[in-house]
């Protein structure tokens, strides 16, 4: 057990810190907020990713031969933490960098790697994931988006939902059914689909928070060349599950810092609202602190294990359950501290932090649903980790 950073890790961190200090545009939040509309803002973030790429910091976990740095898991965690600590703009190609890229490196052909990986790193091409469907959520393998072989192409028909970045994406990692006559897990294939293909329709999906973070995707007679199959035909479940494991294991790293910062902010607010000496408030804040720490420590342990043993496994469900349910408890404590101010929304003259706490409270309800519901995570732990009989 040694939690000190090694000389290599320290050098990595210091190099990154220096680069961030020199390259994050000063006062960028104000510049960003003043940009007219979502597209202009997205373009701003894309330029930032280009800068990160030119600096050699994009996709650091990827092997060097594909343009990464071959960074260790620990260096990835340092990267995520330092980006958050420095208040850097986020990378809009995050799904490509963290999910589609690594999956392509594992399962892709030489041509696919050549064609896609560089542009994922530079942000020139943005990716989304077409996984969930209206009738295939937790039971992902029941998905029905259909792909029929027609010579050297597939003809795709169907609908996807909950697609983050769908509106901005150039490409989609799409899971389709290529064989309806075999058990559901065995007839799936992953296709890499050009979002500009005729027949792809992207519609905004308005959430309970009022914003449109996600999209619905409709595919009508969309033609996808056979060379865009990722992995083997009808082996899509294995390809997709690898992506999901990455998602569960890595999502938490940034969230840990985000919740920590929110905790520090709510402590400040509790002080200015004269609630910091209230014993009940102190107990609740201390409980939040303890749980945020436990989340951080669970993650450190999991990353150390991955650093020794390779790919993320079903234990990632422990992290997913922990951070999502913790964030919901934390947002409730924040609401209790803010009292009636906690309900004021963006634009209210009296709203604290421009209504972000109201938004965060509502947004947290999605945490125990997205990337696998808490219920399905518990069943994954029950079956795959504890060895209990499969219940579904």
């Amino acid at each position, binding site marked *: 057990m040694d939690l000190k950073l090694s000389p290599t890790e320290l050098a990595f961190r210091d190099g990154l810190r220096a680069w961030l200090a020199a390259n994050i545009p000063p006062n960028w939040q104000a510049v960003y907020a003043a940009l007219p509309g979502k597209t202009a803002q997205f373009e701003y973030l894309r330029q930032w990713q280009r800068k990160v790429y030119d600096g050699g910091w994009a996709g650091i976990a990827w092997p060097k031969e594909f343009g990464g740095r071959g960074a260790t898991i620990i260096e990835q965690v340092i990267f995520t933490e330092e980006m958050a600590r420095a208040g850097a703009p986020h990378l809009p190609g995050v799904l490509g960098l963290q999910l589609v890229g690594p999956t392509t490196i594992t399962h892709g052909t030489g041509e696919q790697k050549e064609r896609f990986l560089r542009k994922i790193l530079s942000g020139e091409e943005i990716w989304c994931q077409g996984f969930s469907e209206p009738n295939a959520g937790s039971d992902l393998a029941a998905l029905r988006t259909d792909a029929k072989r027609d010579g050297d192409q597939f003809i795709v028909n169907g609908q996807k939902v909950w697609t983050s970045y769908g509106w901005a994406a150039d490409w989609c990692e799409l899971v389709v059914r290529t064989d309806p006559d075999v058990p559901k897990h065995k007839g799936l294939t992953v296709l890499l689909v050009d979002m500009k293909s005729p027949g792809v329709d992207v519609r905004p999906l308005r959430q309970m928070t009022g914003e449109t973070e996600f999209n619905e995707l409709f595919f009508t007679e969309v033609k996808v060349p056979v060379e865009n199959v990722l992995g083997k035909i009808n082996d899509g479940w294995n390809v997709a599950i690898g992506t999901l494991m990455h998602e569960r294991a890595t999502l938490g790293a940034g969230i840990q810092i985000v919740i920590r910062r929110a905790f520090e902010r709510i402590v400040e607010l509790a002080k200015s609202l004269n609630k910091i000496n209230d014993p009940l408030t102190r107990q609740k804040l201390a409980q939040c602190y303890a749980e945020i*720490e436990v989340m951080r420590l669970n993650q*450190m342990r999991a990353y150390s294990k991955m650093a020794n043993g390779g790919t993320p496994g079903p234990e990632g*469900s422990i992290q997913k359950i922990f951070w999502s349910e913790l964030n919901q408890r934390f947002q409730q404590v924040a609401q209790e501290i803010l009292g009636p101010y906690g309900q004021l929304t963006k634009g209210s003259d009296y709203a604290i932090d421009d209504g972000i706490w109201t938004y965060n409270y509502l947004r947290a309800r999605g945490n125990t649903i997205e990337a696998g519901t808490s219920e399905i995570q*518990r069943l994954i732990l*029950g079956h795959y980790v504890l060895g209990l009989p499969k219940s579904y």
Partner: protein
Amino acid sequence: MQFGLTEIQQLLKNSAREFFSAEYPIAEVRRIMETPFAHDPKLWRKTADQGWCGMTIPEAQGGMGLDLVEAAAAMEEAGRALVPGPLLAHLTACVAIASSGQVPPGLATGEKIATFADATKLFVMDAAVADFIIAPGQLIDRFTTLHLPAIDLTRRLYKIDFESGQPIQADLDRALAIGTVLLCAEITGAMQRVLDITVAYVKTRKQFGKAVGAFQLVQAMCADMLVATESARSATYYAAYAMQENLPDSLAAVSVAKSFINEAARQTGNNAIQCHGGMGFTWENEIHLYYRRIKAAETAFGDTAWHRERIAQLVL
């Protein structure tokens, strides 16, 4: 950076598991808990001969001189076996006594047993079998004890009385922080055992023609026990490391672990009993022995509210 046991630490933990599970099977624990002091001098001797009773005394003072992460790893295994008697009290008191620079003969080898007390003289663990009690500012070797029958059958509590002891310059606060970590390790081991027993049970117990572990409500309870146990382990080992390395957040880390484990362990015990159905409510089933240990641990070394207030003082 590496959050986990080194190979050598893992070997030590393995040998602790081997020893404690071989020497303290649950039938033996039950036998010892029925004795007047929940203590078996012969088995204590055997445990001491392996060095386990001198874990927290530096080698220069005759002990095994384990660092705290190693001691926690060993205590996790002791907790898993529900080792009865004065091990935790003795190891904690030894940290305090060793900090004075003067370790009475026989303490490091376990021939003499120590425990600790605060000014209330109440809830003193295993005082009836102790030769020494360390209290704020003094080391007491002549005292009387009054047994306080309590929930944990494997670890006796007493009210003590004494005239006065030898003045001693010891860092009792640090010793109590270390004792808290050792208790957290012990409870983590107990949680792991309770989880293992429960998972094995729900795989074999059948109702409606299938193992009850196939039911999602049961599976979710087991999954929650797993999340709680792994989290307890993360919190414990970090607290051990932070104390060992004197990190700036070491006391906060101890309170994080203790306040978290108080709740996580109780919930894990609740789920274990519930998953066993009627069997979980019987005397014959061993779950209640662990549950009693877990419940008693909740108020030992500071209860949840006390540790949360300390976190508040340290970080707010």
